[in-house]
């Protein structure tokens, strides 16, 4: 018995020391640099997909660390390093600033002018507002128009029911999500479900299970169900531009599979990775894409989605009060009505 105990006790001690302590970094510039680099190295989901050589980026920015003289310098350097990822979901938050990568829309035409939407030619000034949606009838009352500029601005099914009831005599609907930078994925799903007539596979997502750049779980399928209470079965044009980002990008990815939907405008901005965050020893917060989403054919949606009908706004049209993308959508709906 004593012999067994002598064997058991060391075994218990060995087992008890199996759980390693989490890695901690000192609150120095070097420590914060290492913590930030390591967070991205182990948890950012697009290093392989974007072919980012994160090791060489470390060498480049490590060499610049010695030239840092104050916190602002250090923040800018870290922000610059994060911008190598070319990702609108990557930000560094401090008490005095927020780093961001905006080239994903700044390098492209804006393709949206809100003053045109609210001109008498389209919505005018007596449009209706329900939840986060602004809506009315255009083109002589034959087409419904709904502008939804923020998926964080929530709506209820009751809101949507009134919108659809009001527009029920229209022959088609234009759903404008230009300049919609995202918000809640649940709102994107709820809105998309109004345009499906049956449960449809619309995408996948995976999760990182390990520290390796490609240590992902097997894909988890997600579906868009047909909404039981709300349904729009007439043609719908979804207007997009580069600022249709994140949850809006996910909404458009779903709408690609809706039976009567056509995507019109510019390529969406992307933002296909669900963002998560981590903290640095100095209390700054880094946000980064952590959970990649794919369309139903397992293609990444990180770089955005091409429209079915590519249209850019014309400055000539804008000068005459015409929104080129919106006009094209109206024309497509008219064709649909066989005018």
């Amino acid at each position, binding site marked *: 018995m004593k012999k067994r105990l002598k064997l058991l006790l060391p075994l218990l001690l060995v*087992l008890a020391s199996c759980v390693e302590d989490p890695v901690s970094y000192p609150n120095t510039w070097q420590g914060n640099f290492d913590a930030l680099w390591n967070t991205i190295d182990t948890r950012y989901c697009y290093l392989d997909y974007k072919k980012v050589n994160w090791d060489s980026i470390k060498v480049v920015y490590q060499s610049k660390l010695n030239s840092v003289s104050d916190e602002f310098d250090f923040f800018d350097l870290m922000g610059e390093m994060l911008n190598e990822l070319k990702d609108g979901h990557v930000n560094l938050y401090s008490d005095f600033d927020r780093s961001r990568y905006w080239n994903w829309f700044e390098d492209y035409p804006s393709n949206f002018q809100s003053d045109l939407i609210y001109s008498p030619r389209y919505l005018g000034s007596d449009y209706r507002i329900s939840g986060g949606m602004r809506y009315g009838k255009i083109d002589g009352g034959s087409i419904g128009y709904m502008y939804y500029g923020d998926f964080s601005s929530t709506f209820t099914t009751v809101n949507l029911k009134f919108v659809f009831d009001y527009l029920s005599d229209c022959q088609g609907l234009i759903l404008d999500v230009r300049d919609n930078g995202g918000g809640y994925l649940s709102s994107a799903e709820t809105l998309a479900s109004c345009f499906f007539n049956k449960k449809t596979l619309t995408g996948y997502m995976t999760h990182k299970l390990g520290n390796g750049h490609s240590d992902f*779980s097997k894909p988890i399928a997600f579906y868009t169900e047909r909404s039981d209470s709300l349904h729009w079965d007439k043609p719908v044009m979804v207007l997009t531009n580069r600022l249709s980002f994140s949850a809006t990008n996910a909404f458009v990815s779903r709408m690609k599979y809706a039976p009567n939907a056509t995507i019109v405008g510019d390529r969406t901005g992307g933002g296909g990775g*669900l963002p998560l965050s981590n*903290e640095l020893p*100095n*209390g700054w917060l880094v946000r980064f894409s952590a959970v990649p989403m794919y369309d139903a054919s397992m293609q990444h949606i990180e770089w955005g989605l091409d429209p079915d009908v590519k249209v850019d706004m014309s400055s000539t049209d804008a000068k005459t009060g015409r929104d080129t993308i919106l006009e094209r959508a109206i024309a497509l709906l008219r064709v649909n009505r066989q005018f």
Partner: protein
Amino acid sequence: MHNAFWIALGLAVGWNSVVSAQQPKEKNYLLTSVTTQYGWSMLNLTDAYLSDLPYSGYGLQFNTTARRFATAKSDRISLRTDINLNAGLASNDPQSATFTYIGGNVGSGVQAHFKPIRNVQVLLGGVWDAEMGVKIYSREVNNAANIDLATNLNLSATLRYDLPLWKNHIRLQADVRSPLLGLMFVPVRGESYSEIYYLRSYENLVHFTSLHNKNGLNIRYLVQIPLKNSILNIGFQTDYLKYAANNMVFRRNIMSMQVGASCDLIQFGGRKNRAPAHFVSSEW
């Protein structure tokens, strides 16, 4: 007449004594000893699902232990039930965010009593427990809370030393508990609770635990001072827990100063343990 009264009273008392002496020996009723403690605690939390940084702060603690012997015939085996509740607020070192923590643990177990030497008792056994907690992160992020769920079979030991004093004694007690085997819920890093629910994504959520991935040691030291109708307890408790799953490490370290009391309750109920005839209750 006056004498007759006193004679009659004397006979009545005497008869009653004879009758009482002829009654069978009264049944032993089990007492349940309840120790209830209130504490002020210092917390140290690491939850890699929410942040890699350690969080430290203060909180309040409540715990109660109820113990009774398994049978009235033997003082060798006792049954115990424990309830622990913790609540606290912790912040990271740079004070840029906080965790609000609420947690609880309910356990039930058996201990064998040994008396190796005079004034010393050693109680050894096991406790099965269920644990639940939630940490709410103050920062505006996608995954702003994490839930702890676990069930464990714990090794449990209690050491009691009765320090003799003039007419009474003070008891010094150490109560130790350590998880050996169990199951725990740990979400995949990056997977939100709404994804788990809506996508029915249940893989890698429930983990078998043993010493290879979960280490814990909960020690409560008590000094028990007998009073007229109860026992005053002054205590200190350390609750250390570390576990790993899904490429994340979690830590919880709670130290608390406690004050409380112990008292004995009579437990009865059902057909076997009916209330004794002389027992007065406000409920029955």
